[in-house]
């Protein structure tokens, strides 16, 4: 019986010892696991800290470069300070590029805010979209867009510029390939002038309903108006405005015809003719109404 008990007890002891061992091993494993986990965490955090430190460093040098560039004024001119900062290594070259990039972006944003054109990168850097805003007398009018492909040659592949603006002529004359700023400036001039003339016509039609528009054309370069002269005779007077310069909002020639020939040569109408040449149409008509020249 005792031997049997020893056997059983011994067995139980053995089992207990094994259980304890297992417990210990498990605890150790857990600790080790926890330790490894903490280690891994530590490594991750350390590398993140290093990354952030590097970013801060890059940003501060970028800021320094940027302030230097801003001080020189032009992003294209080389400056001694800038040259000194450049020690020829790839790092500083890259930094210079990045600084110029941010400067250009800020310049474009400012340009966009004052109503100039805006450039956006499209197709993962293979194209740009230029948006030209038009405005007249403080009111924003249409925005026109050009999508340009940045291949070896610049090529416009899509745009919503109306067909009576001579886009192809401006592309060749303005040397879009070499001097895109010049081309965009001229195009913006044409578009703004067209928008201005269109707006003048629109306002005239809205405000001055007594003035009849006999003829107009899509480009708003030829306008024939019919005035009614107050008085018993109430004869028709035709006024022809020609805008030969498509980049201007004021007419280049004003011609007045009337059945009453004396009217045309009267000093009042000579003044009106000069007025039409110098002030925008709708304001000129207001003045003419006030002086009683037209109804």
């Amino acid at each position, binding site marked *: 019986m005792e031997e049997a008990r020893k056997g059983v007890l011994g067995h139980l002891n053995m089992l207990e010892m094994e259980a304890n061992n297992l417990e210990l091993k498990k605890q150790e494993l857990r600790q080790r696991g926890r330790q490894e986990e903490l280690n891994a965490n530590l490594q991750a955090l350390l590398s993140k800290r290093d990354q952030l430190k590097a970013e801060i460093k890059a940003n501060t040098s970028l800021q320094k470069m940027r302030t230097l560039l801003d001080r020189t004024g032009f992003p294209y001119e080389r400056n001694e300070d800038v040259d000194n900062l450049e020690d020829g290594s790839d790092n500083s070259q890259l930094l210079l590029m990045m600084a110029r990039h941010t400067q250009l972006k800020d310049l474009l944003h400012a340009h966009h805010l004052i109503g100039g054109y805006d450039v956006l990168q499209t197709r993962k850097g293979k194209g740009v979209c230029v948006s030209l805003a038009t405005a007249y007398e403080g009111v924003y009018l249409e925005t026109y867009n050009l999508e340009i492909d940045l291949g070896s040659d610049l090529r416009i592949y899509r745009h919503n510029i109306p067909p*009576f603006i001579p886009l192809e002529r401006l592309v060749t004359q303005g040397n879009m390939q070499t001097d895109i700023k010049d081309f965009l400036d001229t195009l913006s001039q044409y578009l703004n002038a067209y928008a201005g003339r269109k707006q003048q016509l629109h306002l005239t039609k809205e405000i001055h309903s007594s003035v009849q528009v006999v003829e107009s*054309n899509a480009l708003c370069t030829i306008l024939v108006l019919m005035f009614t002269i107050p008085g018993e005779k109430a004869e028709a007077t035709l006024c022809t405005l020609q805008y030969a310069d498509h980049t201007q909002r004021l007419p280049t020639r004003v011609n007045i015809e009337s059945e009453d020939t004396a009217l045309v040569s009267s000093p009042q109408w000579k003044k009106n003719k000069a007025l039409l040449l110098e002030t925008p149409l709708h304001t000129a008509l207001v003045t003419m109404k006030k002086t009683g020249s037209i109804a």
Partner: protein
Amino acid sequence: MDDSTKHILQRLMRRIPSQMLQTMLGKWAHLSREDLHSLDFTQPKWVLTEHLLALCEENGLRVKHITELEMIYIIENPNQGMWHGFQLLDAEEDAPSIELTQFKEQFKANLTELISHVSIKIKKHTDEAIWIRVAWGDNFTKPYHLKPTYVVHHLQTPYVFVTGLTSKYKPLLNQALVLATRYGSMKDAHLSGRNLTAIRDLLMRQYQQVFPTKNPKPLQEKNPVPRNPNIEKEQAENTENRLQMACEAFGDGTLPQLQKAVYKLETKFRDNSNKTLTGREEPFRGVVEFASTNLLESLRHCVSSGMASTPVTPLLSSITQKGRNYFVITDKGV
């Protein structure tokens, strides 16, 4: 009024639908007010036609007045018949400063020089479009008014839209137009359709185009399909991208109504499993035609709903970008 004139008037009356008759005659302004009031528009059309014929006889109206009525009707309802677009090329120096009277005189002079018996009517519509009606005759016969050609042109743009032109008179019209507008030549723009406003809007880009912007306002699908909110949440970004690409390729809002797009293939046959057709030297000639009541709208929907793959293939987006609906595809490209 001789028989041919009566015939023209009768044909015209048959063509104009009854609801529009009163307004058309009012706009025509060749009948006095009492005459117009005396016409009873509730009567059947043939009775009305007889009455109108009598009135015209009384007022001594001639062919040129009748053709004016036809022109008014066509200008108000231009979306019938087949319109073809043409493009003028090689502008000369003074092309941008052509004005209406100059163009009218030049065109009339040129065309009458080329063919002596021709009847030309030019009218300027309120939206700055010039409408020209030409009835062609021979050197020996009077102009035939039952098959006139209509031409629409906007000054200072290089586009011309023509309907009802036979190939016999095409070179004459071309030459007259080219000389009058001070361009070098005129070529086929490969764009045709029944709807004049549609092809005009497409060529002159008067529909709402979409460009990439910094602050895109979210484009809304006009007819959303029945929605499952879970799927929508997962697919939100993809849907937005597809919609943006579809609108960039085809436009936003109401699109010009094109009916057909034709792709003529002249490429070599490539599928190797077909024994009879592979390996031939000549190109495989085939024609693919897309037809719909509003083709651009359906293509845009295909792209935005994912049926057509994005980015939009240039074969489809060329319809809007180049403004044509007839393409010949060779191995070298479109």
